[in-house]
């Protein structure tokens, strides 16, 4: 095959897949600025097919003419957005702290508890990945009701932290394994305690891994829908649940649906564009050696 033809085939395939990957995102953002007529006629290209309107942003109180006025939809949207931030950051912090500690312990010490050794403990954590959320969903519903944690931010944070904990441990253990043990040994000779060495020497070195684990956790928690839909209602409802409950009596207002969806995906697109390196680092941990 001639070189030029081969290259154009490669670029052709790359561009086709770029369109497949990006068009839905473009569609989401552009639909925010459509009026009913544009949606129903299937218009695609702004300024050519249709004239952008502020309809979608007005529906959540963020258009230029509503942004400085009181707006109930905006208050609702901001609350859900804030809930999502709290849930994803809170859970990721919790998982990162607890998970990093466990990963460090498993990476450095030999534990033995009855017949359980390090490998069993590691497997115990990782096996949680297999557990589908649906198995925990109903028991949590009942337990949370009894614990008065239903529809509370704390309840959501706990269960999100649980769901990302195996991933954090997986990434962090891999990270700690690459740091030579001589570093802490030297520190301990200088009079550092185990925890002192961990906090002062090792954690700063493991920072890239922690960032990767944290970002991946935030992404997963931010997008989580299943538990949020079951365990929250008026108070702790997150953005995905708000998006999913947008069907009104007059059918779907696509522009406001698109505006909410855009708000739900925009933060992650920004993270993806600027922190792609860390996401790839987190995803590929352990699978490639």
């Amino acid at each position: 095959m001639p070189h030029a033809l081969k290259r154009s085939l490669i670029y052709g395939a790359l561009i086709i897949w770029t369109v497949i990957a990006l068009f839905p995102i473009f569609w989401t953002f552009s639909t925010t600025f459509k009026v009913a007529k544009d949606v129903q006629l299937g218009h695609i290209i702004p300024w050519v097919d249709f004239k952008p309107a502020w309809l979608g942003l007005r529906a959540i109180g963020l258009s230029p003419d509503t942004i400085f006025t009181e707006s109930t939809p905006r208050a609702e949207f901001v609350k859900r957005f804030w809930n999502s931030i709290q849930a994803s950051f809170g859970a990721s912090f919790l998982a990162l702290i607890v998970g990093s500690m466990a990963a460090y312990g498993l990476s450095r010490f030999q534990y033995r508890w009855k017949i359980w050794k390090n490998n069993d403990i590691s497997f115990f954590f990782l096996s949680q990945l297999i557990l589908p959320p649906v198995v925990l969903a109903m028991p949590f519903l009942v337990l949370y009701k009894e614990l008065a944690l239903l529809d509370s931010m704390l309840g959501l944070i706990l269960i999100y932290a649980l769901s990302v904990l195996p991933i954090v441990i997986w990434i962090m253990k891999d990270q700690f394994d690459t740091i030579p043990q001589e570093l802490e040994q030297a520190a301990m000779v200088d009079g550092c305690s185990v925890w002192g060495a961990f906090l002062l020497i090792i954690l700063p070195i493991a920072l890239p891994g922690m960032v990767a684990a944290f970002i991946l956790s935030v992404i997963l928690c931010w997008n989580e829908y299943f538990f949020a839909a079951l365990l929250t209602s008026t108070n702790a409802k997150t953005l995905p649940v708000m998006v999913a409950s947008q069907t009104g009596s007059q059918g779907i207002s696509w522009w406001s649906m698109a505006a909410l969806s855009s708000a739900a995906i925009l933060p992650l697109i920004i993270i993806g564009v600027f922190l792609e390196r860390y996401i790839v680092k987190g995803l590929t941990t352990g699978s490639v050696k």
Partner: protein
Amino acid sequence: MTTQAIDGTGHDAVSAVVSPERRRLGSLLIRSATLLLALITIGQTLYAYGITSIGFANWMPILVAYVLWSAALCVGLILRDGEAGWRALFVLPAILFTVALVIFPTFFGLFIAFSDWNLQSAGGRSFNGLDNFYQLIADEYFWNALLNMVFYVATVLVQYAIAFGLALLLNADIKAQKFFRVAFLLPFMLSPVAVSWMIGKSMLEFRFGPVTNLLRFFGWENPSLLTTPWLAKSTIALMDAWVWIPFMMILILAGLQALSKEVQEAAKVDGATGWQGFWEITFPLMLPVSVTTVVLRIIFQLKLADIVINTTAGGPGGATDTISSYIFRVYKDRSNVGYGTMIAEVYLILIIIFVALLLKFTSKYMQRDA
């Protein structure tokens, strides 16, 4: 729960000297905290069943007691075992956290699974033995959902093939590699709910969706993507592929980049055509990464729910149901946690067996045991 120490015998074998008084104090702290937790729990259980009249309004204090007990356990271990206790402190929080939030609810789920329990009705829980299980055996929707899961898991192989192709493209000597990598990765990061609505319900909309319009343009008169059962299932599979192909692609790309340059050159020259070089050199070398990727992906696929719930809610007629979406529907429609939990627990047992077999047959191809 036993409170035996987790012995940490470290690489440098620090033999900590702990005085007998401190050791006794530690043991005492652990024992008394355990006793206190047990007493509070028993007391609250008796109160909940109406046997005694003193108790808390809800079970929140028990959770607080568990947290305090965990703290006491950590402090007690440090007092009792010294250095080994300090080391145990690294893993203990994660273990206690996971036990409280996974092990306990899973077993509690078994208790719910054998009950008739409608959360909306005032009647509360009533034990109904194996009724839920018999209902499950006779439930066509359950078996249908299970079959659908087989289909969805099988589509992972197709996703893998596409992901491998994309990874090869990205690994080729191209310009703007970073741009294409980020663009290809983005679908993976989007909220499944937004994807369901903006792709599943908007772009595939029968009258105005750009995808249906495109299909009409190509001469398909009646592209009823989400109302014909087999089409709906395939459409869900395509959307799922759109979201998850980037994940596999990134793993495979990392594998490709880890191959040594000589190997890649060898695959190109040596008289072999690109196709031959791929099958004889690249693909066998990539087998461990491939198997790991596919196994991980299958494990995630078993949880497939959000896209189905939001796009078709399992319809038409259960054609797109996954086990998770079916349970979600059972709960939303009938508020019966008993039956839903029975399905979930049976599903858990099935996938534990499935994943164990999968790992058994694939682990020899993987670089690391998962």
